């Protein structure tokens, strides 16, 4: 992935090295932290976790980071939270990056092409369906909608139909995909998350990371499209097309390797964003269910106590900050290593 020169540039870059170190530390903490802990993250300790005036005990020999508001070991919860946060962030990023790359590359490649025609007949049908619905005739509206879809499908699948039937504005894949991205960006995140949470009966780590992945690909798609636009006009791409290579082959063998660099950078920075996104979801109460320790939950629980027990806020807050900082530095470092600017 990184050729020799890029690797050298990376190692010379102190910021990148610090970022990598932070990430490695985080991973180590996530792997080994829970193993060395002496307490169960889900068990309240009503004997040692609580002080005389009924507040959680502070950092001491027994509880490294103190006790949380239900008198459980904060350190252990932080470690398990690290595992969860990393797991969710990494896999959500994977989904978002893959989806974003696919949509972005395809969209960029097909930009400016002819695409399909939207026949006026089917557009009229859609419009008519809308009017019927507004007037309160639900059934006829459904019929008109189906008619419009049918006409569209026919003209898309049977290009040999006479032009007079197919007449209408053009729509290419790029425009369509970018409109979907627009809709996704304008859609209220909170409503969507609540709806997904309500629809799926169970919120596990998997559903969270799928939710984050499915909402996080939009920005990546845009950037990948811009990069693809730059790359597709290069000589070897034109040559490949002239040679008659199939489109998927061109996309995979020529375009993808040239946009892989920026993709990796986006992905790394995206991990940082996913850590925060997961924390925000937990904070809002639509993330993983309690008593699973996640950094977002710990932040929310610590809020009420931030005067009496400030470590309950500082511990998860610092963890999130360091994780995000580390991944951002790493991403920056990768970008500078892969795409150096003359200084």
């Amino acid at each position, binding site marked *: 992935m990184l050729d020799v020169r890029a690797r050298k540039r990376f190692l010379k870059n102190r910021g990148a090295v610090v970022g990598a170190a932070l990430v490695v530390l985080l991973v180590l903490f996530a792997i080994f932290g829970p193993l060395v802990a002496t307490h169960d993250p889900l068990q309240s300790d009503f004997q040692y976790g609580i002080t005389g005036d009924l507040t959680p005990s502070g950092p001491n020999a027994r509880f490294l980071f103190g006790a949380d508001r239900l008198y459980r070991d904060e350190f252990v919860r932080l470690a398990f939270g690290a595992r969860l946060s990393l797991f969710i962030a990494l896999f959500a990023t994977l989904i978002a990056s893959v989806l974003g790359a696919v949509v972005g590359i395809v969209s960029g490649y097909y930009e400016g092409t002819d695409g399909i025609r939207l026949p006026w007949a089917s557009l009229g049908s859609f419009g008519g369906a809308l009017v019927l619905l507004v007037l309160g005739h639900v059934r006829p509206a459904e019929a008109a909608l189906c008619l419009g879809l049918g006409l569209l499908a026919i003209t898309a699948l049977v290009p040999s139909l006479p032009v007079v039937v197919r007449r209408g504005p053009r729509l290419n894949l790029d425009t369509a995909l970018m409109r979907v991205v627009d809709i996704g960006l304008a859609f209220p995140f909170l409503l969507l998350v609540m709806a997904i949470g309500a629809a799926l009966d*169970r919120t596990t780590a998997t559903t969270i990371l799928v939710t984050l992945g499915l909402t996080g690909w939009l920005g990546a798609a845009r950037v990948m499209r811009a990069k693809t636009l730059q790359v597709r006009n290069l000589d070897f791409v034109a040559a490949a097309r002239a040679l008659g290579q199939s489109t998927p082959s061109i996309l995979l063998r020529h375009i993808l390797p040239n946009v892989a660099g920026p993709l990796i950078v986006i992905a790394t920075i995206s991990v940082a964003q996913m850590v925060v996104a997961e924390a925000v979801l937990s904070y809002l109460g*639509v993330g993983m269910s*309690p008593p699973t320790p996640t950094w977002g939950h710990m932040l929310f629980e610590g809020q009420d106590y931030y005067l009496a027990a400030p470590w309950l806020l500082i511990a998860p807050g610092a963890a999130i900050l360091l994780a995000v900082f580390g991944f951002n530095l790493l991403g920056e470092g990768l970008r500078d290593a892969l795409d150096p600017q003359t200084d």
Partner: protein
Amino acid sequence: MRSTRRQISATGRLVGVLTALALLGLAACREPLEPPIGAAHPGETTPRRGGKLRLASIGDLRGALDPATSAEALGRGAIEIMFAGLVDYDEAAHVVPDLASRWELSDDGLSYRFFLREGARFHDGEEVTADDVRRSIERALHPSTPNPWASLYDMIAGYDEYTQKGAAHLAGVVVEGRYVVSIHLHDKDARFLPVLALPTLRPVCKSAGERYSDSWAPCGAGPFRLEAGGWDHGRSLTLVRHEGYFRPGLPYLDAVQWTYGMNMMTERFKLEAGDLDIVRDISQADVVRFQTDQRWNPLSVFEPVRSIYGESMNTEMPPFDNVEVRRAVAAAINREHYREVRPSAVTISNQAIPPAVPGYDPTFRGQEYDYPAALEHMRKAGYPYDPATGRGGYPGEITYYAYRPGLQEYTAQLLQQDLAKIGLQLTIKLVSFPTFVALAYRRKTTQISNPGWTEDYPDPSDFFDPLFDSSAINEDQSQNSAFYRNPRLDEILARARHELDETRRFALYGEANRIVCDDAPWAFTHNYRFYIVHQGYVRDYRAHPVWPENVGKTWLDRAADAVSSTSPGAAASWASLTGALSRPSGRRASH
């Protein structure tokens, strides 16, 4: 980004500065409370007229200030002092005369005749007559009015005809003279007076008309009235004295003002600075501080407890269709631990009636924590559990719905730990409150949850009837979330509704309490109570079992030169800003 050693050290320096600031902040954490501002004439007990009482609230008043449709707890204090009713509650939650100077109950117990005071005036100057009483009742109970409490009054004769069959008038309300009105019931009903004292049927001005309209400016016969522009939605509500209030001399205050959407910390700061007079939203740490501070302790009080919380177990879904499992749960919960989630506000509960409701028996033992007994109940249920090996117990999955905001998400985690010790494995699902309400009240949906119940009116029927009577069972709006069906209990509750003798009635509810605690459709866990603090110059404020802010007879005794501001926001912020500039600590010099 050309990173070198220097950049990292620069960043490190930045982080260091921030950390230092944070630590500085932490060090300054434990500052003591400012002293309360004392009364100007502490020896005197004769109330003085004048002044504006200022309160605040975290929440935001969203609905309308119409007694017929008000559902939220937040507006209750305001509505209580804007609208006077035929009867009201005293501080022991008994029904006492208000607009009606007295009432008579017929021998058969079916008719109440109310004699109104003469000369009582609405805010618009019109006199309150029996016809206004009738009109207001019919307006509130009309089928086009979005009244959330209408069915509480179904004991009035002619209720069904009026609300469902289109009758022009409510037959049970009869005007017998300019100041005399009678209300007839289907049957003897001990709930009638307690629900009548609620704001719902209280007389409203003629401007309200015969039918509900959501653009009506509130106007009633209470001690305070709303002026045009007095309600700044989402920001503040100001009520001024009604000079024609029927009790001579009252109210003492010129005005009462609520500010909405204020942070708890801000409320505390403003209270200390004298910019707020009474505060009800107090954080756990601050409650402890106010309680232990000798100067503030006499000025603060716990409100009477009017809510119950308990783990509601769906008797139609396994494993809670087995009474022994339910008894095991009731005995397995260590309620002390629940209290430790928020010690200032949570008190332990072991029965269906909270302390502030008449009929509460403090000597009644109810459900208690008994771990060996819990294990025994599990054995009797057919799911023996061995704590030493961790084997046994109920093998199936149990889903627990918890919601945010509130303490439920924390008590749920404690419950999970307690029930694991008797072999029941809970999986907690956190949902938002509206989703929770929809799921908890739907049949065959929720196995166990902690919905809680707050008193609507101070009577045991308000707790037993909606929660444990089988007539409250419904497909998707069942407040009987345990879907509990006990014919014997139903019969006792029906008798208690129609029993007018208080001693016999409370004995019946005692029996009902025993049945419910033994059969355990709910495992009663705790109550929640509010803490109120007021400044030293606020006199004659007493916590009320029903009204959250009981300011009808409160008066202010403030020295003329004490710190006060008509617009607390600007003055406080500029004051603190200039204070910060002149003094390094940014706090008042009197400290």
